[in-house]
């Protein structure tokens, strides 16, 4: 029994390694596009521009350094938590590329997860470059997180990514019923945009709105890891529990929708 488990682990590890390296090679073919894509995540930096000149920041006691660090961290977190599953999956289902995947003894979602991770690896140098340029203009904002804090932030970013991936998987599965799954994703992006902390630090929210935002999964996807990265005091256990609870809700839902969706896909002619 132990032996077979070790064997399964070895096989899983090998699949992961091969999938990741192949997908990384694939993503490198599109490095120019990915660079542009990285650049398209500048929203937090634009917001930093507006916030740093606003009277509200002074009123809230947010120093320029603190704002810079927060928004730059938000930028980094956003870069590594972007999920585009719904778009590629829709395309694959339409073009019939999903069918061959279904005939292989590997859950197709693993492939998509691997390609997201590989895309992040491709994106990394561009993000570092944008950060370098940022610090060139704002040397005062430069900071080095503690090794422990940095490690925690990296873990939190990955968890935040997984949560977003899971949430989008749920939306993506609606592809099997409607052509408008991507539109739904676009709708869901709106509360994410305004409630996650991407365009304004959560501290700036009025009490009631903040309490409401914290009931949604969105702050855990951005504000929580961003604050960790920026070295701000943060409720570590609370953030991790939020991610865990949402993941526990979404995972069974995603798997159930996958099963039901496939039944429908096959009923429609695959």
């Amino acid at each position, binding site marked *: 029994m132990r032996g077979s488990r070790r064997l399964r682990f070895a096989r899983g590890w090998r699949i992961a390694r091969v999938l990741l390296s192949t997908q990384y090679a694939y993503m490198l073919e599109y490095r120019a596009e990915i660079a542009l894509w990285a650049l398209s995540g500048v929203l937090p930096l634009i917001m930093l521009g507006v916030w740093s000149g606003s009277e509200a920041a002074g009123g809230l006691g947010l120093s320029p350094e603190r704002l810079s660090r927060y928004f730059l961290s938000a930028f980094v977190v956003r870069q590594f938590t972007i999920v585009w599953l719904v778009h590629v999956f829709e395309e694959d289902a339409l073009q019939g590329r999903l069918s061959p995947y279904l005939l292989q003894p590997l859950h197709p979602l693993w492939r998509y997860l691997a390609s997201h991770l590989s895309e992040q690896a491709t994106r990394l140098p561009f993000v570092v470059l944008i950060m370098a340029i940022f610090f060139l203009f704002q040397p005062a904002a430069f900071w080095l997180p503690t090794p422990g804090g940095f490690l925690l932030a990296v873990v939190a970013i990955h968890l935040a990514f997984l949560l977003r991936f899971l949430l989008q998987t749920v939306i993506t599965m609606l592809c099997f019923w409607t052509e408008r799954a991507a*539109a739904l994703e676009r709708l869901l992006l709106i509360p994410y945009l305004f409630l996650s902390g991407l365009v304004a630090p959560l501290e700036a929210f009025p009490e009631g709105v903040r309490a409401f935002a914290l009931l949604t999964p969105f702050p855990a996807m951005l504000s929580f890891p961003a604050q960790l990265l920026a070295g701000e005091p943060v409720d570590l256990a609370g953030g991790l529990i939020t991610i865990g609870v949402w993941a526990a809700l979404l995972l069974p839902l995603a798997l159930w929708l996958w099963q039901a969706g496939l039944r429908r896909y096959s009923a429609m002619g695959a």
Partner: protein
Amino acid sequence: MLRRFWATSLAADLEYQVNVLIELLAVAGNLAGSLFVLSLLFGQGGSLGGWSWEEALVVLGLYTLLDGITSTVLQPNLSTIVTHVQNGTLDFVLLKPVDSQFWLSARTFSPWGLPGVAAGFALIVVAAARAGARPDGATVAAALVLLLSSTVILYSLWFVLAATSIWFVKVWNATEVLRAALVAGRYPVSAYPVALRTFFTFVLPVAFLTTVPAEAILGRGSAPWLLASLVVAAFCLFGSRKFWQFALRFYTSASS
């Protein structure tokens, strides 16, 4: 195969209603979010970059209006350029006895951006009235001219970006860069630090898209800015044409 089934399936029945609903929700959600963030930016204070709340709302209204125009005309047309290049069907367009840039820019029209146009327009009118703008003939004329020139600028930026699909296949990423950067137009340009203000005026002319027309609507427009806006618009349009001709030299009719 699947598309055909989908098109005729139960979901397609509600096609129009659902699309309208989604667009209305998106416009309402975006507008509510923008207003919320703007209110956070004002905080307890009374101004943002020297603009009052109502005045800043005119800027936001212009942004919403232009964003609606983007979804109605720019995005649907210019995304077809990408498809043409990918499928090699650009050949047919180039062989037509019509100016290819015109043909590619004015082919289709998507009604789903109209709620945004309407909401933006309404916000401009209401906010301008509350800001105490007195619309006389000259103000209205100047505002319309500036709005036209900002539309031309916006169009040129989009077109140039779409034309880069001749080099980059997955260019929709690039259009996202533009959309992301244009978000800066939600706020008056004077709200930004000097370096960014300069960038948004001279490099990426966001200032001319929303701030300058808003000044005119509020009756604060000046002849130099009007002139500058027209010059920038003419320059962008000319540039986009030149860029298109340049890009076509690299077009190697994709096979397959």
